[in-house]
């Protein structure tokens, strides 16, 4: 099972609605993945700064952490168990070192624009805890999980991120992930879990680090990854979709002048504005689809 959604805004006027629309899409797919959920939203970037999304236990004192990073990090935006801080790019490694010394804090993701949130629980509840409906941005992806390949933990929830501003959600299961993980680890990609989907994210990061475009990275994964998959991938400026050649996992897309949307089921798309006149189609197997902001 599992459900995945993605929304790429083409009309700037719709950007303030991104979070609300994505929350509705995730909520509809609760019954495809009731055990955990997560999402990534690509929001505002600040010149010369990088954002960290941090996760810590419920009672954690983010303010105290910020005092230790005095003068470096912005005031945190706290959302339930997560907090987003922004630091100058020049101070990134210094901040990473300080965060690594803080045992209760995990870095969920980082990037100029990407913020990423995930937790165990029903997807509509997870979206509400993080107030997804209030977020704005240019594009976002989300996932409702019914775990098969690793335990129901926050770390096992999607999206997976293995590089700045890069993340991936996956419906399906990979069969050669252990071998690919070992090869990528040798190439310097770091993994936080034993999850198969994180390997797919790592593979995309590795290809893009070598200079591949999002489309080239998607195409390369057709040869490298074995198993069932529909992937939706986010980068700082792009949004991509790929289905395996057998196309076991369902997928439907919709496009209007204002947005491109992806859903595991059409039900997830029915409340999008103008859906009645949207072009609705099933993405072809083994074909990489991608959209870039200009």
């Amino acid at each position: 099972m599992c459900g995945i959604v993605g929304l790429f805004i083409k009309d700037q006027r719709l950007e303030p609605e991104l979070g609300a629309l994505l929350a509705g899409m995730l909520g509809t797919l609760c019954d495809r993945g009731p055990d955990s959920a997560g999402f990534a939203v690509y929001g505002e970037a600040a010149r010369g700064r990088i954002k960290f999304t941090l996760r810590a236990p419920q009672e954690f004192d983010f303010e105290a952490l910020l005092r230790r990073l005095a003068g470096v990090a912005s005031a945190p935006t706290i959302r339930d168990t997560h907090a987003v801080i922004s630091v100058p790019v020049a101070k990134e490694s210094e901040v990473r070192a300080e965060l690594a010394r803080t045992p209760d804090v995990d870095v969920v993701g980082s990037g100029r624009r990407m913020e990423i949130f995930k937790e165990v629980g029903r997807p509509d509840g997870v979206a509400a805890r993080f107030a997804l409906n209030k977020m704005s941005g240019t594009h976002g992806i989300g996932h409702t999980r019914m775990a098969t390949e690793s335990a129901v933990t926050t770390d096992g929830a999607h999206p997976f991120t293995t590089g700045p501003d890069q993340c991936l959600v996956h419906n399906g299961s990979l069969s050669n992930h252990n071998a690919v993980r070992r090869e990528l680890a040798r190439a310097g990609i770091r993994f936080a879990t034993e999850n198969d989907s994180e390997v797919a994210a790592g593979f995309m990061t590795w290809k893009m680090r070598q200079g591949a475009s999002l489309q080239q990275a998607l195409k390369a994964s057709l040869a490298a990854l074995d198993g069932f998959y529909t992937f939706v991938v986010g980068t700082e400026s792009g949004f991509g979709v790929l289905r395996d050649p057998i196309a076991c996992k369902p997928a439907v897309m919709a496009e209007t002048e204002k947005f491109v949307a992806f859903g595991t089921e059409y039900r997830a798309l029915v409340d999008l504005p103008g859906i009645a006149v949207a072009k609705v189609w099933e993405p072809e197997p083994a074909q990489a689809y991608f959209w870039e902001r200009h």
Partner: protein
Amino acid sequence: MPAADLATISLRELNAALHRLAPDTADLHWRVINPRGEHAIAAGLTAPVTVEIDGHVGYYCAGMNQRARVVVHGSAGQGVAENMMSGEVRVEGDASQSAGASGCGGLLVIDGNAAARCGICMKGIDIVAKGSVGHLSAFMAQAGNLVVLGDAGDALGDSIYEAHLYVRGSVKSLGADCIAKPLRDQDKAELHRLLDAAGLGNQVDVGDFHRYGSARRLYHFHIDNVGSY
């Protein structure tokens, strides 16, 4: 004409109302609005009624249909008309995977394209796709007819038994034990009948089609293979 708005009544209420219809019901024409991609809309019908659905539907629409005529004014998700026994299902948009899967009878007409596995395991259903069909269509097809006015994807008719396949466009590849066969007069007559039923009448030249079927090498025991058992 009874109308059902799935924004105000539940899918179960709609399907229960359709299931309660007697064979001689006077409510012969139903309209469903706001289907919102719900699954199993108008599945399991047995009364000879027409159900028109305004919009896209989810999985298994009109599954197990008997006698009814179901028209989708939109596209359909996976398994539309799966296991149909009789009657007619028409999709005015595209159909997702496994359209008409395991169907035993009746007619499924898809005005657009069908995705992978169209007619998988078909057992007597007639399927007419005005567009193209995806990979592994008519996989293990046992009986019935699949007519494709566009192209067919990879592995058409893999492990086919005795279903008849007619494709007007190109076939990306044939599956195991599926071969091209000559288009005989009796095949043209069958095509005429199917195209008429699909409402295409004389718009299409049956001579443009290619016929495919089983080479019958896979499902018959062959003495050379005795060591394999």
